[in-house]
């Protein structure tokens, strides 16, 4: 029996990582964002799990453009930080947990999720920025081993929001049946509203984002019913990556306790959001 102790939803905008790497977090354009993170960081530093699972997407750095898995899982001992074209971020490589990876794979395949396995994988900002949001100063190593779960959010047709939520639920069951870890943290990354290309570039939808931040805690089913088209319309062509939050949420219990929520516009071209949930809550029916 392993327990998911917390779930963290966070944007993974590359410039958040760049601001940290360049010591710019005190500057006026960045300070409000990082101040918003602080309570979550403090709480997370007190609640380090044995292992974490991080749901993210690759941005054409770790995986060739001719291969696009709908869902994939890493099963490596170690994930190297990718060179995205300007050198590797000066953050630690990621230690994996292949034993748990194979356990999850086995259980998820048995439940009818058709995952692709990566036995080697470089992880890009979609992965390392959320780790930095969680742990700004990792030193030589991140707080615990981390397993990547990759979702296709770039190439239409993405998995539906409903399918992501179902994957999360199956993930929760698979974690619960694992004997090798006591405590597990799970991160869902991406979003919030943003659009990078086209004449609608720069699009931000605060109302939608606030609704999403509220519903991810209290009414994830409602978010799971959003169509691709609706997500692109409401959250922008890149905002659709919010479907990854639903994988995280699906792995948590029906009732969770909100530890901290933060929202800030902009991180570069994106609305940045963070929501942290404590999963150790007595469930009522």
């Amino acid at each position, binding site marked *: 029996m392993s327990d998911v102790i917390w779930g963290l939803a966070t944007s993974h905008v590359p410039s958040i990582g760049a601001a940290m790497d360049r010591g710019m977090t005190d500057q006026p354009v960045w300070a409000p964002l990082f101040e918003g993170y602080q309570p979550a960081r403090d709480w997370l530093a007190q609640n380090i799990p044995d292992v974490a699972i991080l749901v993210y997407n690759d941005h054409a750095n770790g995986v*060739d453009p*001719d291969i696009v898995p709908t869902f994939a899982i890493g099963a490596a001992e170690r994930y190297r930080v990718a060179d995205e074209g300007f050198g590797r971020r000066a953050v630690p490589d990621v230690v994996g947990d292949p034993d748990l990876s194979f356990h999850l794979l086995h259980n998820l395949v048995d439940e009818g999720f058709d995952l692709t396995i990566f036995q080697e994988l470089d992880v890009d900002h979609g992965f390392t920025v959320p780790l930095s949001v969680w742990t700004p100063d990792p030193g030589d190593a991140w707080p615990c081993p981390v397993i990547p779960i990759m979702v296709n959010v770039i190439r239409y047709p993405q998995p539906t929001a409903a399918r992501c939520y179902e994957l999360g639920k199956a993930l929760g069951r698979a974690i619960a049946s694992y004997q090798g870890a006591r405590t597990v943290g799970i991160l869902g990354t991406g979003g919030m509203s943003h659009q990078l290309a086209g*004449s609608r570039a*720069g699009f931000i939808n605060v109302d939608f984002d606030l609704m999403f931040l509220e519903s991810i805690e209290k009414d994830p089913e409602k978010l799971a019913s959003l169509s*691709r088209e609706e997500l692109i319309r409401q959250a922008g062509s890149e905002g659709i990556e919010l479907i990854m939050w639903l994988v995280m949420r699906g792995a948590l219990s029906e009732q969770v306790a909100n530890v901290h929520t933060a929202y800030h516009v902009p991180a570069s071209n994106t609305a940045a959001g963070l929501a942290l949930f404590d999963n150790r809550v007595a469930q009522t029916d």
Partner: protein
Amino acid sequence: MTSQSRVELPGTYVFDGPTSRRGHSMNKLFMSLIDEGLRTEFLADESAYCARFGLSEEQTTAVLQRDWQAMLDLGGSIFYVYKLAMLDGLSMQYLGGVFTGMSEDDFKAAMLAGGRTDV
């Protein structure tokens, strides 16, 4: 064949099957730029490099002239196109300006003011 058709939303690119097919060679070229040796080769002779990756004439022109809008129209994905912009030292906010007909500074200012909420 309706199920393949892209989401029709004004001012929005959806990187769907037909688009990715059209842009495949060009996106492979962009992705290759994460390799330092290949970046050097690209910069040494950009049109030879485009030929090596099998880009169409239009795509080659778009790349050589840094016609960012045309790259998208010819099947580029923004995440791949951005790799060329980075090589040129340009930011996503610069590109945002190009796509919306603003200067980079105006685009940045619009984002700092809360983003473009009315589009």
